[in-house]
């Protein structure tokens, strides 16, 4: 621990007391400031910073400013998301001074213990609280789940009777080429009667079965003007309607609660009208004509293509027969031609063979004759060798019966009265003697 510094001498000539240790003086100052009367001050918030333990901001107005701090738990209790620069607040508290030390800087702040958002900021805070409550109850969702018709026949519109929003809605519908039925539910859109009147108008429109979608349209205005569209009853009613609601309230920078609970939130009434009729009727008509043409084309094509196939199939047998007939004719022609060629070939071949034979016959005729002569001679000689005459010439005789048949046995000879004995130079008749057994 450091020893306290020895007190230095004062400034020569000065009549002021001291010198005092600065820490003592800072502590005295803190005590004095904390002794100031606790008050409420108001001004515009600037530079809000939310820390882990404390929240800091400045309160300013045209003549001065005050650094403020607030314990984080007190700030959280307010339920505020944030405070933008310029938000007017009323802060209750008193002065405080952190005396600092050798290692930390001193700081002065107005320690706020309670805070209230004033003016528009007050309204915003209320809206914010309600928004969170509605969101927590899931009331932002039901409208968004509703089916929206792309081509409604009847549209309900809630708007101010004389406002520009009405013309904008009509312009949007014209742009879509839509010319169906509009049911106007005119209502005040910015005084204290507005919210209940708008709620009733919405309920009445939704009760008409013909109405398929409802547009709520209002032009721009201050937050106070648009506050009717943040009414809790109105927003709860919209959330639970059976008919989809398309909202267009204020400028695109404004975000009223009806925008959160409705099915669709649009930046202008014209856009809201276009969202109510998502189909461009002119384009849809052209598209439909195209679809119808395609359908007709396909239908015709399906018939024509099949008719072609059928025609081809019906022609097929006749074509087949014709093809076969042509083939047969061709084969007949080929056959005849082939026959003619065969006959000519055979004739030619025969002629050639005959010619060859003739030539060969002619060539072979001489030699064959000689050979045949020789053969004949040889045969004659062979025949001559077997000639009985020749045998007779050698001394043999041939015995013949009266009929001239050769007698070849003694028994046969005995049967005849006469016999003829043929010798080589003539015949002799003989008479056989009776048979005598040789002893």
């Amino acid at each position, binding site marked *: 621990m450091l020893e306290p510094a020895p007190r230095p001498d004062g400034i020569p000539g000065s009549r002021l007391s001291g010198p005092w240790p600065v820490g003592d003086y800072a502590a005295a100052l803190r005590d004095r400031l904390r002794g100031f009367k606790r008050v409420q001050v108001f001004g515009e918030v600037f530079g809000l910073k939310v820390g882990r333990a404390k929240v800091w901001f400045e309160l300013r107005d045209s003549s001065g400013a005050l650094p403020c701090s607030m314990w984080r738990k007190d700030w959280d209790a307010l339920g505020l998301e944030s405070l933008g620069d310029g938000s007017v607040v009323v802060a209750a508290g008193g002065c405080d001074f952190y005396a600092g030390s050798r290692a930390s800087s001193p700081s002065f702040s107005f320690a706020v213990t309670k805070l209230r958002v004033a003016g528009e900021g007050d309204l915003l805070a209320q809206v914010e609280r309600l928004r969170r409550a509605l969101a927590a109850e899931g009331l932002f969702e039901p409208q968004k789940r509703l089916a929206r*018709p*792309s*081509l*409604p*026949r009847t549209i*309900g519109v809630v708007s101010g009777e004389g406002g520009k929003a*009405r013309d904008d809605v*009509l312009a949007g*519908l014209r742009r879509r*080429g*839509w*010319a*169906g*039925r*509009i*049911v*106007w*539910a*005119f209502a005040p859109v910015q005084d204290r009667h507005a919210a209940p009147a708008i709620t009733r*108008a919405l309920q*009445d*429109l939704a009760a*008409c079965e*013909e109405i398929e979608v409802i547009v709520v349209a209002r032009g721009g205005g201050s937050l106070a003007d648009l506050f009717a569209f943040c009414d809790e009853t109105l927003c709860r009613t919209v959330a639970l309607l059976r008919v989809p609601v398309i909202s267009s309230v204020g400028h695109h920078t404004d975000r009223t609660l009806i925008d959160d609970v409705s099915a669709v939130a649009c930046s202008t009434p014209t856009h809201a009208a276009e969202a109510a*009729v998502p*189909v461009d*009727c002119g384009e*849809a*008509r052209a598209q*439909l004509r195209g*679809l*119808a043409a*395609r*359908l007709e084309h*396909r*239908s015709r094509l*399906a018939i024509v293509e*099949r008719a072609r196939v059928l025609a081809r199939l019906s022609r097929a047998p006749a074509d087949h027969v014709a093809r076969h007939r042509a083939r047969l004719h061709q084969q007949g022609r080929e056959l005849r031609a082939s026959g003619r060629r065969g006959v000519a070939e055979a004739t030619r071949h025969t002629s050639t063979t005959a010619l060859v034979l003739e030539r060969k016959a002619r060539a072979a005729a001489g030699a064959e004759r000689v050979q045949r002569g020789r053969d004949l001679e040889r045969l004659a000689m062979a025949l001559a060798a077997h000639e009985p005459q020749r045998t007779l010439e050698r001394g043999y005789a041939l015995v013949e019966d009266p009929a001239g048949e050769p007698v070849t046995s003694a028994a046969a000879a005995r049967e005849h009265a006469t016999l003829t004995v043929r010798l080589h130079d003539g015949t002799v008749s003989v008479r056989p003697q009776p048979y005598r057994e040789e002893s």
Partner: protein
Amino acid sequence: MSEIATLTYESACTRIEDVIRRLDSGEAGLRETLELCQEGRRLVEFCAGELDAVAQGLEELRLDELVARLEAGSRPGATAQAAQAA
């Protein structure tokens, strides 16, 4: 008919697209093709009817007039007074 009664313009358009896609695929047989074409024509007629219904000329009614007519049981007619005139 009951199908047509529950149709909406958007579902009819979607179905027409489906029908044409199926026809374009060339996979449908003759009977299916003819049925699809017939269905497609019916849907096109329905859509054309829906478009015609919102092309009859803008009719503007005040809510109380519509309620009065509905209560009287008569269909709101062409004599509806334009809100502008009202």
